[in-house]
């Protein structure tokens, strides 16, 4: 009788230990999943902050700032300087992209004139956006382009000054930051 009781008590202790172990494992799994989620959210937050920083850097670039409206405190970019910078960065013989990679990192910067309507490329009214900079990901070993994962986009209203026509264009500066 006593042996049987002792066996039951042993079983009881083992069951308690197992239950506590399960609870601890569940707790660890829960905490780990929370940590992973938090890390992902933090990463998105950093990307969003980066997009704001890059936007401010673009707005402050001396290469493209316009001289006419600078005293008013508005964010004003010169249309022709922006075009020139875009072409310079795209020109692979100049290696300018390496310099701007350090500033703009893994992002895409484009500008979209809103009003008055202008033709970014003379004679082609279908092009609505001009890309100033776009980060080129290294190629995969098989030569294919790695897929860019867009994380966040930011928009800034800016004034685009056309010195030839002496007019201010309302434009949106769009910053996309890739993972």
């Amino acid at each position, binding site marked *: 009788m006593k042996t049987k009781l002792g066996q039951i008590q042993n079983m009881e202790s083992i069951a308690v230990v197992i239950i506590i172990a399960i609870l601890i494992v569940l707790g660890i799994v829960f905490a780990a999943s929370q940590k992973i989620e938090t890390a992902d959210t933090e990463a998105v937050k950093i990307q969003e902050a980066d997009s*704001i920083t890059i936007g401010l850097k673009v707005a402050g670039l001396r290469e493209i700032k316009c001289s006419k409206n600078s005293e008013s405190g508005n964010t004003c970019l010169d249309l022709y300087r922006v075009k020139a910078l875009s072409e310079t960065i795209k020109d692979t013989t100049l290696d300018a992209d390496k310099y701007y990679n350090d500033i703009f990192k893994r992002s895409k910067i484009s500008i979209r004139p809103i*009003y008055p309507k202008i033709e970014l490329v003379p004679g082609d009214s279908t092009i609505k956006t001009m890309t100033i900079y776009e980060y080129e990901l290294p190629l995969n070993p098989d030569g294919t382009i790695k897929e860019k994962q867009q994380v966040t986009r930011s928009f800034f*209203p800016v004034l685009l000054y056309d010195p030839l026509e002496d007019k*201010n264009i309302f434009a949106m500066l769009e910053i996309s930051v890739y993972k």
Partner: protein
Amino acid sequence: MKRKAQIEIAGLLIIVVLVSLVLMFVLTFNVADKENQGEPVKQVKESQIRDNFGPVLLETSTECDGKTIRELLADCGSVREIECPGPDTTSCAYVKTVIGEILKETLVKQGFAYIMSVKKGDSVIDTGNMYFENDCNPDGVSSVPSINPFETDYGTMKLVLVQCS
């Protein structure tokens, strides 16, 4: 024997209560953290749009003799001498159409809820009724208004942009 069983049940109850308390504590902190995460960055992003929009809009040139929106609003709020091309020949009607077009292509497209108005003194300028709104619940005004005053020959006017939640 019965007494021992009662003590064991009480022990189990204490463990269950302790585990529940720990879980509640962890969950409360997690929920509070998640609610606050990303808020400051979002606020900075929105304030960048809100604070830049008015000054940029005022300096934008129009196709009405190259006049800026600021000049057309000043004319609309005073002598109304400027005549513009198209169906909306008065400065008030023309500038209202232009502002509406810009807002539609920018803030409305991005789902930004706002109220924008142009005021002379404390009232929205009556002629032309310069009041624009997108998806805004009047009780849900969530930002400090971005006020852009500008001088005219007939007094100070201001363009006010308020973000709604």
